[in-house]
């Protein structure tokens, strides 16, 4: 524990120093994956929403979030095996925004596994992303764990048809979170069939990690904290003993357990989102299990934002939230309770006032 505080202090200073020489650190806890037999850690950066103002001018606040995450990941020691980028690199899917993001991300000293978000997709339906960044869905194996990357932000064709003549209008519609004219996210049957085929060759004892942008369960439809065909995706994963879904999109601390699947949301580097429970005009299904993040304070641009890293213990995830203006949090799968638990705040009597949202 003490080591962690030291590391955070170090990272705070590292964030201020640019291009500091790499100092060997051994402060990141790495746990041996008992069933996979190998240890590894990977980092997770998400939802940077790089926003072009005009020409080469971008929103400074959001640039700073991503830069800081990259600097800190580069200072991790031991180095993470890879970095997952969780989607919404751009704000309006523009080439300028994606290029700007790629340029910043190129300073990472670790390979990146990319997940696409709706803000990257809806201007050209993923064309530029596929050309320049990454395939939209794919799978890979890493040290005994099977990873599946999904494009979970597809939607109904009937909605797409409404905007076929005006790609920017389509993008702007999807970019508005509270849009009453929006359309729910979907994985869609062809991709679910692809995943089912991909998983057919995987042993049921192999830990499976699914990377998606939207949560692969249903929290709040009006903000698309939602995947329309989540049940179908969950069904295709039912056979496995250990399944972890890591997703972006919600810009908040959020975790849940449904059946055999543990869900963890990643922080945004750009801004935090309120919990749907704070919208008193509509019902939502925010998991009771989640101990809320501290309420954001706009006075500090980086409050309620951050990144994370994960380690796998016996194929179960431990998620370490690196929160820039709040104390770090660790949410780990508890094998006795069979669900993720915050290592510090899970018990209601240990919670602090900023964790109460209204």
């Amino acid at each position, binding site marked *: 524990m003490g080591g962690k505080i030291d590391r955070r202090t170090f990272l705070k200073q590292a964030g201020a120093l640019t291009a500091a020489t790499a100092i060997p650190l051994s402060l990141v806890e790495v746990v041996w994956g008992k069933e996979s037999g190998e240890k590894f850690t990977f980092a997770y950066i998400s939802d940077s*929403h790089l*926003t*072009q*103002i005009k020409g080469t001018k971008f*929103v*400074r*606040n959001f640039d700073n979030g991503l830069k800081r995450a990259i600097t800190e990941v580069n200072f991790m020691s031991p180095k993470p095996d890879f970095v997952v980028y969780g989607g919404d690199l751009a*704000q309006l899917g523009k080439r300028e925004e994606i290029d700007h993001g790629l340029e910043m991300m190129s300073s990472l000293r670790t390979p990146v596994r990319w997940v696409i978000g709706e803000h990257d997709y809806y201007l050209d339906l993923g064309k530029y992303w596929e050309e320049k960044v990454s395939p939209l869905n794919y799978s890979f194996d890493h040290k005994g764990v099977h990873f599946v990357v999904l494009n979970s932000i597809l939607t109904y064709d009937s909605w797409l048809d409404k905007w076929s003549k005006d790609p920017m209008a389509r993008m702007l519609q999807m970019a*508005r*979170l*509270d849009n009453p004219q929006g359309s729910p996210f979907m994985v869609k049957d062809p991709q679910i069939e692809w995943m089912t085929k991909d998983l057919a060759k995987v042993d049921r004892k192999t830990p499976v990690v699914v990377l998606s942008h939207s949560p692969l369960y249903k929290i709040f439809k*009006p*903000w698309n904290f939602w995947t329309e065909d989540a049940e179908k995706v969950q069904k295709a994963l039912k056979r496995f003993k250990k399944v972890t879904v890591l997703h972006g999109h919600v810009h908040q601390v959020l975790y849940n357990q449904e059946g055999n699947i543990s869900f963890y949301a990643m922080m945004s580097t750009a*801004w*935090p*989102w*309120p919990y749907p429970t*704070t*919208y*008193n*005009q509509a019902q939502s299904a925010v998991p009771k299990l989640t101990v809320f993040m501290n*309420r*954001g*304070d*706009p*006075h500090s*641009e980086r409050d309620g934002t951050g990144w994370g890293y994960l380690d796998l213990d016996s194929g179960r995830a431990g998620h370490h939230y690196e929160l820039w203006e709040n104390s770090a949090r660790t949410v780990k799968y508890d094998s006795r309770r069979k669900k993720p638990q915050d290592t510090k705040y899970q018990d209601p009597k240990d919670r602090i006032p900023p964790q109460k*949202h*209204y």
Partner: protein
Amino acid sequence: MWKKFNRITTPVVLATALAVSAAHADEFTEADLKKWQAEFEAVAKKGEAIFHSNKLGANAVACDMCHPNGTNTHPETYPKFQKQLGQVATLRDMINWCIENPLEGKPLKFDDPRMIALEAYITWERRGARLQPGMH
């Protein structure tokens, strides 16, 4: 006293609401209520558009990016102490604070129709919440 109060204020209300008859100044009809509600809703609707516009500030950022459906604006808690302002502040102070900081824009005058529209929208989205002045 109350009679007098009514006489002073009603002409103003009637003028803005464009009521048809001034015969019984202290009475109003269902039609008046509908009309006044519609007036409010039109302003709240304008506020919704401003709240979702990336032209309000100077950096293409919009309020709804951080406050979907006006959440976390907590109009029911104002006036209240705001650390960054060092004093008990009004909702309009905080609206301006967010225009100047996350949106890197220029503050609005408190009686600017856009300010009133923003306030109307935010408060409408929060309808039903209990008044809790000062609460954090």
